[in-house]
């Protein structure tokens, strides 16, 4: 099973069209391994992206601190239900 150690999900706030375009450029850079849960759309519309580690200078807040811990919690709940 693929694990996601220290992966975070960031909620990015883009202020204008230029920043939207900037994030779209990031989206195209595969080597960054960004996984967009909610892609860039319009200024004021939040963008959610899973990242291996925090980066970039665009304003963001951390939505999920540790994806893996949530996955493990979900697994534990499912196993508990089965048992």
């Amino acid at each position, binding site marked *: *099973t*693929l694990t996601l150690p220290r992966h975070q999900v960031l*909620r990015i706030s883009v202020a204008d069209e230029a920043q939207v375009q900037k994030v779209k450029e990031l989206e195209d850079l595969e080597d960054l391994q960004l996984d967009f849960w909610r892609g860039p*759309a319009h200024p004021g519309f939040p963008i959610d992206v899973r990242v291996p580690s925090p980066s970039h200078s665009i304003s963001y807040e951390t*939505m999920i601190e540790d994806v893996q811990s949530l996955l493990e919690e*979900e697994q534990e709940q*499912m196993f508990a239900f089965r048992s």
Partner: protein
Amino acid sequence: RARSTDTFNYATYHTLEEIYDFLDLLVEENPHLVSKIQIGNTYEGRPIYVLKVTSTWNTLLNGLPMQTFGKITQDYGQDAAFTAILDTMDIFLEIVTNPDGFAFTHSTNRMWRKTRSHTAGSLCIGVDPNRNWDAGFGLSGASSNPCSETYHGKFANSEVEVKSIVDFVKDHGNIKAFISIHSYSQLLMYPYGYKTEPVPDQDELDQLSKAAVTALASLYGTKFNYGSIIKAIYQASGSTIDWTYSQGIKYSFTFELRDTGRYGFLLPASQIIPTAKETWLALLTIMEHTLNHPY
């Protein structure tokens, strides 16, 4: 395996096998109300099922364990509005639209969202099933890169998971409402996604959306936005409801469910039931409108 739908735990996530077992339980417990239809097989050979709920045999319903069949059977015969709907229309439920992706999610990569088909000439796997429909296919709002999460596929309906529903809808020929449900973002949207032009039924769909999200918010206050896909979120081509609308299904909607707690694709299990309950109110509003506005 749960012994009955009574003992099934609705408040946790389940594997594909558990969900398919649950479908069988529903049919076993409600043979005159619910039937299971296999509409195809996935790329990896898993069956794709649709549940058909029909009141054709409603005179036999009194003897059924009503409390065991979730909201639909609970409300049939109890809730006047819903009873009228089911007395007139069948309801089809495709619980798992991407079984291969779902199984892969639970076994290997919880973040997986695409199908599992192989693309010739690429090491990347899978297609976004909501960019693979024959409506503005391949235009802006989908990716031609097989490694992208929004890869539209080689051609419209290239994914058997999509083609199976397409064939089912065409074969039925009389579907009046089609609702595609996704997580997350708290949106209720109608066509179009691939162009800015308003749909011919824009005013009615917008009013109905407003009524539906109002009903939804009445339970827990969860706020949803609504509008056409392209205006409410972003341009998306080859999407499901643009195709269903093009087939003459006026009441075509797509839901992005609640994001309370901001966990995105990892909605906490504690929110499954509240999400289902509030969403049901919106679904009921759309179904009731469909019943009262025949076309």
